């Protein structure tokens, strides 16, 4: 799913395949390049395989394998990825607090409307993507 997108690439880390597909479709429609991962391990593998750093990461928290909290910790430990903005999209009841804890740029509580999702991704990618 990797392509040269005018607005930059978005890494979507979400264990639910339906949500991954919906997020991917709508963001691709908005002109973002899409990378999909079902958990933290897959996300790290994708990041390491690509020389290009994504403009933002859309991150779920509760996932089997490596969860969102662990992935955020690993990203902060690596110079290359530590400044990539994270937007947390989770059903967690304290999603706002958790987002602050892992240093995310912003957060959305599931279920989200696609308009708000697009707005949040544009906001996070604006410095890299240029015209929003």
């Amino acid at each position: 799913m990797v392509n040269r997108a005018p607005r930059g690439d978005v890494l979507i880390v979400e264990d639910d395949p339906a949500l991954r597909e919906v997020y991917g479709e709508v963001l691709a429609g908005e002109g973002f390049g899409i990378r999909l991962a079902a958990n933290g391990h897959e996300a790290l593998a994708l990041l390491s395989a690509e020389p290009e750093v994504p403009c933002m990461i859309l991150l779920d928290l509760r996932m089997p394998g490596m969860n969102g909290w662990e992935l955020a910790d690993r990203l902060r430990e690596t110079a290359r990825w530590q400044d990539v903005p994270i937007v947390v999209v989770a059903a967690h009841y304290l999603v706002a607090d958790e987002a602050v804890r892992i240093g995310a740029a912003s957060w959305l509580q599931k279920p989200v409307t696609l308009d708000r999702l697009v707005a949040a991704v544009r906001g996070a990618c604006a410095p890299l993507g240029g015209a929003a």
Partner: protein
Amino acid sequence: MAKAPSDVRPATRTKGRKPRTDRAANKTTGHGWVASAEQLYLVLQEAGDAITVVDMSGELRYANKAAASAMGFEEPDEAVRLPRKELMAHFELLDADGRPLPEEALPGRRAQREGSAAEALVRFRIRATGEERWSLVRPTVVRDADGQPQFVISSFHDVTALKATERRLTLLADAGSILGKAVDYQESLNELARMVVPDLADWCVVDVVEPESGLRRVAVAHEDPSLVELAEEVQRRWPSNIEEGATGEVLKTGEPLLLPIISEEQLVAAARDEEHGSHLRALGLTSVVILPLIARERVLGLFTLVRSDESRAFRDDELPLLGELAARAGTAVDNTRLLHEATEAVRLRDDFLAIASHDMRTPLAAILGYLQLALRRAHKAEDPGGQKLVEYLSAAEGMAGRLTDLVADLMDVSLLRSGRPIALEPVEIEIGLVAERLVDAHRKLARTHHFVLAHSQPVTVLADLRRFERVLDNLLSNAVKFSPAGGEVRVTVDQKGGTARVRVKDHGLGIPKDDLPELFTRYRRASNVAGVRGTGLGLAGSREIMRQMGGDIEVTSREGKGSTFTVTLPIVGQ
């Protein structure tokens, strides 16, 4: 004996109903007779109160029939014959708390010593029968012409029945106040056990039936702590089997069991081995009552009382009082269990709601997402049927949106009820517009009420829109619900200092003054949760949400005049 016999004259009965003066009555009426010494002796002998005469050396010289019977003798002579020491050995003298009383403290002794003494309450136990008596004793010192004391007359008025009633009432009242505050029954049963020892029994033991683990000992009381330790050791080393023996029988039948005297043979038979037997002997298990703790026809445990002194063996006539105590203890155990179960059930329900609403979010998010995606495509499609498709998808998206709101409300309510915070999404909102939209919606629903909105200038705040709407919606619904006769509901949006205010004023039932302090502190109606409008937030939840947003809700109300609820929020940029 104030008057000499010569002052007492015989009189004959006169008939007729005319009112008479006292003087006339004295002369002509009454049953006056001159008493002979024998008659006076009879009077003394047969008097209802006990009367004794003790000489100055302390020996009993006279006792009437009531005195003899009070001391546990058939005939007065049996008592008078005995030397003082032997006579006193028949009794155990006690103070009001049941502790030994020295003989010198008796009113008669004090009168003898000091020349006079006030009347006093004396409690004593007849050793032979174990029977306990209370008497109000009034001593009088009789002197000769030179003023030398000759002997002491004591009159005893038996107040045993009165005292028993009084003690019963006190005991039950004390037990009631201990058990009434029971939040933790273990603690109150311990307190109850300590209260009945040593007055009612030397030992008090309470066991409670646990649904899974059998009998659990919750209280052991004895005046001597080393004996309590011994009892605990016995229980640890030789735990009682609830299927067997006396305890098993009481648990099975729900009937109290009275073992007036436990013989050495019975003790040996009950002991598992010699060491167990010697331990049991050391505990002093002489007389035992085992009462069931019963509530709602179930045996919840055992209330066991033990007396170590054979002379104080339990009697049948004590069972009603003891049964009453056990019944109260049973009710206390039952109540605290019910309270605990109810609290636990509410907690489980709230946890379930929180988890269920959380788990519903992911599939809902996907449904909503697919619908929105499809809608975007349908908008772009050139297909002539596209317009219809947009219509269907919009309707489905609207429904999914409503379902999402319901799930979100459910989650809010369950989080707030279990005291956890909710994740707010604050945005800038103009509360006048929000109020206008909600008032319009309510205007359409409630035709009997007249809604007035006063909103002069825009007031912008930072708030979670959906939650703020829920709070306001709740207040408008309440205004309608609690003014059943209809009338005006006035909504005023304004600002005061740096604070935005929305006031909702109705002219309904109002809130009783006593209810005002509790209005925001508890969830009044759990049934609201599944309400059609999906709020279920209640005033407690509303206040919690407003406070999490940096605002508050307050109320002023007069019963019968109506209520005004005021929602406040800090204004942006102030």
